[in-house]
């Protein structure tokens, strides 16, 4: 039996071994838990889609221009993006039409593999869902002749047009407190606010991106430009279940490739007209 010079030395030796053993057990348990969650957790999401050769995507089919149902036919910007993603993944696309309130439930319960339905990131749902690559920013942008006005500080002494009661109006009212002489002009619709800018009644409009693109598509003669950066950003994402990392990775790669080769911009331009920034 090992001898110790003092009783304290024996006590510290035992204590050391006890602490070291506890640390080892703790590290082992944590390692197993972490590994099971991050490395050894089975993720058959991509294999499942491959085996079916079908990607099932949930969409709200009452939201123009993203997805609209006419008879048996569903068309729209989101449909085209989903078709292109499915083509790049080498599978067929199946659209599951549903109301906007049912989208997340359908994904959570596995009725669909993904959601592509102009869905902005919701921080509250990040524990349950993955938001992959914003394919479009549907937020609020300044629109002005030749893109003269890009941000709030450019608007000192100017007239800004906004849809009455909208988020743009809300933002413009906040700017009233920060700029010495800003005039906010209200209009019943974003299109009227944009028309006011085109006709010189206002210097800039603060409207949502979709309204701006759709209006500019119909009014090619108007020399208006959308600002480079949004005033209020609202990116639309592809949404997947949080455990479907493999599928999310494939979808993300497809989206990135679409962005890189210009096919994403082409699809958006097909539905919203050319990008005038």
């Amino acid at each position, binding site marked *: 039996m090992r001898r110790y010079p003092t009783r304290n030395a024996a006590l510290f030796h035992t204590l050391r071994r006890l602490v070291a053993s506890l640390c080892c057990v703790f590290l082992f348990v944590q390692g197993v838990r972490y590994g099971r969650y991050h490395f050894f957790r089975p993720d058959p999401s991509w294999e499942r889609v491959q085996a079916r050769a079908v990607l099932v995507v949930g969409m709200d089919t009452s939201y123009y221009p993203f997805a609209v149902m006419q008879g048996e036919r569903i068309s729209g910007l989101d449909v085209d993006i989903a078709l292109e993603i499915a083509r790049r993944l080498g599978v067929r696309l199946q659209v599951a039409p549903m109301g906007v309130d049912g989208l997340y439930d359908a994904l959570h319960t596995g009725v669909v593999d993904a959601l592509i339905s102009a869905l902005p990131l*919701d921080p509250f749902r990040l524990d349950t869902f993955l938001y992959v690559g914003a394919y479009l920013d549907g937020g609020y942008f300044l629109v002005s002749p030749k893109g003269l006005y890009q941000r709030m500080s450019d608007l000192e002494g100017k007239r800004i047009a906004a849809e009455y*009661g909208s988020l743009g109006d809300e933002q413009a*009212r906040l700017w009233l407190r920060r700029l010495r002489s800003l005039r906010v002009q*209200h209009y019943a619709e974003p299109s009227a606010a944009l028309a006011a800018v085109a006709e010189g009644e206002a210097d800039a409009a603060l409207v949502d991106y979709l309204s701006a693109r759709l209006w500019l598509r119909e009014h090619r003669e108007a020399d208006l430009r959308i600002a480079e950066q949004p005033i209020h950003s609202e990116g639309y994402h592809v949404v997947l279940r949080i455990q479907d990392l493999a599928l999310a990775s494939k979808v993300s790669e497809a989206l990135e490739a679409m962005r890189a080769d210009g096919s994403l911009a082409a699809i958006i331009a097909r539905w919203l007209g050319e990008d005038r920034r």
Partner: protein
Amino acid sequence: MAESWPYRAGGAVRWLWQRRGIWLRGAILAVILLNLAPARARLQPEPPQRVQTAHPILCMHTRLVDEVEDWKIWHTLRMVREMGATAIVELFPWAYIQPREGVYDWHHPDRIIRLARQQGLTVIARLGVVPAWARPDPRLQPTSLNYLAPERYADYAAFVAAFAARYRGEVTHIIPWNEPNLYFEWGFRRVTPEEYVEFLKLVYQAAHAANPEVQILGAALAPTLEPEDGANGMSDLIYLRRIYEAGGGAYFDALAVHTYGFTSPPDDPPAPDRLNFRRAELLFDIMRAFGDADKPIYITESSWNDHPRWTHAVRPSQRIEYTLAALRYAESTWQTVRNLCFWFFRAPTLYRNYMDGYAFVTVGFRPRPIYEEVRRWALGEREVP
């Protein structure tokens, strides 16, 4: 000979042990510093306020029952007062206040009512949500939170009486139940107006015995196109007529009404097969037909919604326009309407669906333009065209 690592580790432990006084004090100090947090916001004493308004018809439906912090309740009520609204409608769940038979917890309603009175606001109390003890054993019969068997009506009446007695002089308007013409709201039991009259009779008598000043409002009916034997409920028009036919008119001092505009403007004419703002006039016609033309009416829920993804929503500009037009119309045309209350002022958290399009103020207390415009109207300021 080089010392082994266990020996060196032991030395380190010994070194720490010898200085245990210092590091233990340091650790205690660190724990204290790390746990320092701002004190919970406390309300400063404030003198009683008075509502300044040019249009006392304005009222808001608040959602304070699930609000935890005092300052949020106070801030909500202060914003309601500053808006020019004279009254609030608030739900006080029976299940929260009487969690066990014979045991009352008035803590939460006390502070809501105290703070509302401090802001000079009238409280219209809606009482609902059945506690577990008043429902059947869930192992024998699963039921919803709205299920109240006829043999338990007396328990509910006793609760209403206790509420009326406690808040005598503070709360004079009580709405027993909500939308009893809906299958869901009636606890998934068969919807029968005659049964509601029996229920109302008990509540009315108990409440008036406890507090003679109290006004019992006939529960607002859900505007619905369901037929008389509908799967989801019964038409509000048929239901109210049958209440009167069963003699129910004697058991409410005023009537609560729900009327939503959906996508129609407020001047859209009423018709039995349409859901719009002026559908309320069809209810007034029934009251008139049964000799109740002068009975006061409180519109406890009304609104337009501007959620961008809801098919029954309108544009934000239309929402403001319709809301202001509805207020002007109700004030000038509906002589017996005491308050027009809008659903809803602010929610404690986001619903994450179309319901968010009803809010006047964001969860973070940022007033939406509709709040500003209704406030300007209520205070008699210039209106935005």
